[in-house]
Every structure is written in C-alpha cells, then in structure tokens.
C-alpha cells in the first residue's frame, strides 16, 4: 500500500502504540491488561509499519528473528516458574521481591509473574507477527 497519510501517521503511532503496549503489560497484574493484550498491541504497531511501508522494513525494525522471539518468550515464561522451584516451592508459584528504586519513597514490588507476563508478551508478539507477515508477504 502506498499511502502518504498512512505512512506519516504510522511514524507517530508506532512509538505511541509500543509505549502503550508496555504500560498495558505492566499494569496487567491487578488491573485489566497483561502480557497477552500488550503483545497484541505491540504486534499491531509493527503490523501498521508493515502495511504502511513493507514487511521488510518492519522486520528490519524488529531486528530479532520472530521464531527466536517466540522461543525467548516461552523460555522466560517457563523460567519464571523455576524461581520458586529453586526455593523448594511448587512450580510457577509467584515470588515477590521489594526493590528500592531511586525517586520513589516506597520500594517497588517486583515478582516472578511479571517475568511470566513479559514472556507471554514476547510470545504473542512473535506468533501474531509471524502470521501477519506471512499473509502480507503473499499479498506483496
């Protein structure tokens, strides 16, 4: 597709969508959102790039092979379950740590479910983009 409007808009929308996807990912623990929705949003950002320009440019922007990204996501999700296992607990039980961060009065709570969600995020991003890119390449 060769549309100036879409190409200009996607330049602005891409970073916004990616930022939003990360926000959705992080707020997902207690509120609506999470890795799956975040991953879908991020995928839509790259899909927009692929449609406004071409698949090749979107792939370049990603830098990572999609299959490797899916593998990484699945590994992260699985490894997040190993933390409590190494502490003698059951597989996939959430562990939470309090991490003091500069600029915040209270320490931030970070837990293994966040890692799991990041894994889901990457997996969904990789799988959805594989599908979209494959279809798009047939069209091109």
């Amino acid at each position, binding site marked *: 597709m060769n549309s100036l409007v879409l190409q200009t808009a996607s330049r602005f929308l891409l970073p916004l969508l990616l930022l939003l996807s990360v926000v959705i990912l992080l707020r997902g623990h207690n509120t609506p959102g999470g890795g799956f929705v975040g991953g879908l949003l991020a995928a839509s950002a790259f899909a927009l790039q692929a449609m406004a320009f071409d698949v090749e440019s979107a792939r370049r922007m990603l830098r990572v*092979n999609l*299959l*490797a990204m*899916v*593998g*990484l996501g*699945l*590994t992260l999700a*699985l*490894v997040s*379950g*190993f933390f*409590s*296992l*190494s502490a*003698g*607990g*059951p*597989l*996939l*039980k*959430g562990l939470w740590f309090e991490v003091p961060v500069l600029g915040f009065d209270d320490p931030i709570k970070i837990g293994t479910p966040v890692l799991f969600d990041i894994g889901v995020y990457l997996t969904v991003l990789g799988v959805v983009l594989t599908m979209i890119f494959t279809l798009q390449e047939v069209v091109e």
Partner: protein
Amino acid sequence: MNALVVSPIAIPLLTAFLCMMAWRSVALQRALSIAGALALFACSVLLFVRVLDVGVLAADIGGWRAPFGITMVADTLSALMVLLNGVVAVAIVFYSIGAIGPRREKHAYHTLVHCLLASVSGSFLSGDIFNIYVWFEVMLMSSFVLLTLGGERGQLEGALKYVTLNLLSSSLFLSAVGLLYGLVGSLNLADIAIKLGSAGDEARPVIAAIAVLFMASFGIKAAIFPFFFWLPASYHTPAPVISALFGGILTKVGVYAMMRVYTLIFAPVFPAAGEILLWIAAFTMVTGVLGAAAQYEIRRILSFHIVSQIGYMIMGLAIALLVLERMDGAPIEDRPAMLATAAMALGGVAFFILHNILAKTNLFFVAGVVHRLRGTGELKELGGLYKERPYLSLMFMVSAMALAGIPILTGFWGKLILVVAGVRAGEYWIVGVSLGVGVLTLFSMTKIWAEAFWKARPEEAEGTEPKPDDTRGTGWMNAVVAGFVVLIIGVSVLAGPIYRVTERAGHELIERAPYIRAVLDEEYLRSLPGGIGERWIEPRAETAAAGEGR
C-alpha cells in the same frame, strides 16, 4: 521433591524453547537436543527410584492446593512410563543424528520432538482430567507437524486421516470432561474418584455415558478396534525415526489414560467396562494381526502389529476390571486371591507396555536402517540383507522374536503374565485368542525375516540403492539398535524383579488409597460433605476399604 515431579515436563519444554532460539544453527540445536534428552532421562530415573523408595509423589502447580489447582502425580505406573519416555527420548536423539538430515532439522524438528516428549510426560504425570486433555492437544499438534515434516504426498494423506480422527477423539474427550464436571464439579482425578464413588444409583446412566465417551476417546488415541484405521494409514509415511517415536510411545499414552481413569474412577461405578473391553481387546488383537498378514511393506506390517499389541494391553486391563467387578459378590475368603489376580493382570499390562515400547521401537529403528540402506521398505524389492549385514539381521531377529513372544525374551514374559492372569480369572477364550494371535505375529515377523533378510536380492533391484554418500551416519543408527537389543535382553533376564515392580504398580492402581492420599490432604478429605472422604484418611482404613468397596 516438587522439582523432581515436574522435571520430566519442564526439561523437554525448556529444551524445545532453547532450540527455537537457536534457530540459526542446526548443530547447536542438535547439541541442545541431546543434552535435553539426557537430562530428561536422568530426571526420569531419579523420579522412578524416588517413587519406588517413598511411594506416590504429588506436586501442586503454582501452590494451589488440590483439588482446586492442577496436581502432578507420580505413582509407580506413571513413573515407569515417564522412565520409558526418557529411554525412548535418548534413543531418538542419537538415532536422529544419522537418520533425520538437515532439511528436516531446519524446520524445527528438535523443537517438535521435545514438545512431543513434554506432552507425553505431561499426560503420564497429570492428576487432572482437563490437564490431560491439554497435554493431548499439545501432543496432537506436535505429532501432526512431525508427521507432515518433509511434505511428501503420502505424508499429507496420512496426516489428514490422523488429524481428523484425533480431533474427533479430542472432542469426545472434551464432552466427557464437561459431563463429568457437571456431575461432580471437579476435575481432579482423585477428587472425582471419591465423589463419583458415592454418587447415587440415579447417576449410573450418566456415569455409563461418560465412561463410554472416555473409552471411545482414549480408544481412538490408543488405536483399538474399531477406531484403529488412522494408525496404519499414517505411521509408515513420515521419516523412519518419527515412525519409531510414534510407534514406540504415542499409542501407549491412550492405553495409560484408559488404565488410569478406568481403575481410579470407573471401576466401582461402571461394572460393564470389563466385559466391553474384553471383547474390544479380542477384536483389536485379531484385526491387527490379520491386517499385518496382508501387508508387504515393513513399516506397514509393524503399524498393524502396534494395533494387535494394543489388544493385549486392553485385554489385561479388561481382565483386571472383570475380576474387580466379580469381587462384590464373592465370598470374603476368595477376595485376597482375586485382588492378587487383578494386580497381576494390571502388572502384566505395565510389563507388556515396557516390553512393547522396547521391541516395537527397535523394530522401527531397524526398518529405518533398512530404508536407509536400500531406499525402500517394500518386501518384494528387498533381500540379501543377511549376507550383507549379519549383525543388523541378528539384532532384527532378537527384536522380532521378542515381539512374537519366543521364550526367554520380553514378549514371552509379558504374554505369560497376562495369560496366567486370564486363566486365573477363568477367561479361557480370550487366552486362546491371544495365543493364536501370538502365532500369527510370529508368522509376520518370519515374513519380514525371510523376505528382507534371508532371500536373495531380486536382480532388478540391483543398483537402485542409495549411493554410499547417502548412507553416512548409519553408525549412530546401528548403535541405537544395538543398545535397544541389549536393553531387551537385559529386561528378559531381569524379568522377575521388573515384574515385581510392575505388579506393585498394579496393586497401587487397585488400592487407589495411596494415590488419593498423596493428592488430597486430610483436611480436605474431612471437609467433604456426608463423610465420603473419611474412608480414605486413616492408613488403617485401607484394608477395610478394599474389602467393602470392591
């Protein structure tokens, strides 16, 4: 302990994911794959030893207490099955070095194999009926892709039949799970067993419907009569190493699932199961072996034999269920002997599965080597292998004779246990059928021997074999075949001690109390309405329960 129970699932999954990340390098994937399989084997050995040592182990995933979360349970039977899965895993990865070729390896072969191994371990270890469904789906997806890997015409045709029938099986399974959940409100196997056991008579028709749905669904997976058509239609089409993996371990998952749900859940509430399964077993044995007699391609013959061997396993299960059902009306003093017979039948099934995984996988491995040397598996184009490869021929002979049940080899012991249990249960006709099928199995095996190994090579086949370049790597394949022959002989020699372990697995399946107690804690058992959990609590209640419930 928690880690040990889930490790046979987590290790192959991790290996599969790492192989995905290493998509660029086939060599790295291969190394990861071998390391993963060895780790899986090591963990499955540790788990098996531990279960033999301390009894049934259970792990609640995510720390959610049973029956609300998903529980993984390892009793003697499932630990044994996981161990066999580990053995096959190691054999497959080493055999693949020579057998699979970079073209298939590039298309995520190693990832798929390890996903399959994880799903098989998952099905063996899961203590949650819906979770078993999920593992079955993972298994179906990875096996479907493995089946079509390479994209030859025959493969796609076989895969279509495979996936259609297996999807049907999945939908039956899901409906059965739904009905069961509607009836008892639980998915945890141990919890279902308790609640279904105390259901009133008005629930019996629904229970029968659910039990038959499970029978059909697991029956399709296990390839029993009349659902077996997909198996001989598809198992000979993919790369030989994939045939070996499927033929060795996949159908046994269906048999295992059937053993699990019928002994744990349905034995006391669906008394007709034994009779039905006995007939199915007879038909499965006979049709499988007759189908094999009509075939002239090595892997097709072996595929039909998978079906007939599944019949033996179902026969053992059916005998056990029949004996358990008769125990209700039997005089008290006969009951210990009947319990022993039932345990013997189930132990016989476990032993037979062990034997079959070794012998059948190895026959497929040999078929792979033959395919590699000659470029075909058609009996009429083969010949002269005995002259050319005497050791390979000898190794085929040992595995084939083991499968046919020639004395002192594993198949003989497996059949002997089942036959003795059948005679003790008074089911003489099925014993007769199984012995007749044994003779026909011998016929098929000698057919392969005579045609592929013994007879002179047909003249028109001269020069059609692959060039020496293409037969590189057969060293690894031969080594794996030799390793399995050593295993088969080892199991044959140690049949006594091994049978004692499988018989213990049978006792555990019948008693049910160790399983239930390992999964559900005392507090939950006490909290069940109407005191239905009480009889499972006290260790002393075990003998009383065995006498009164059965």
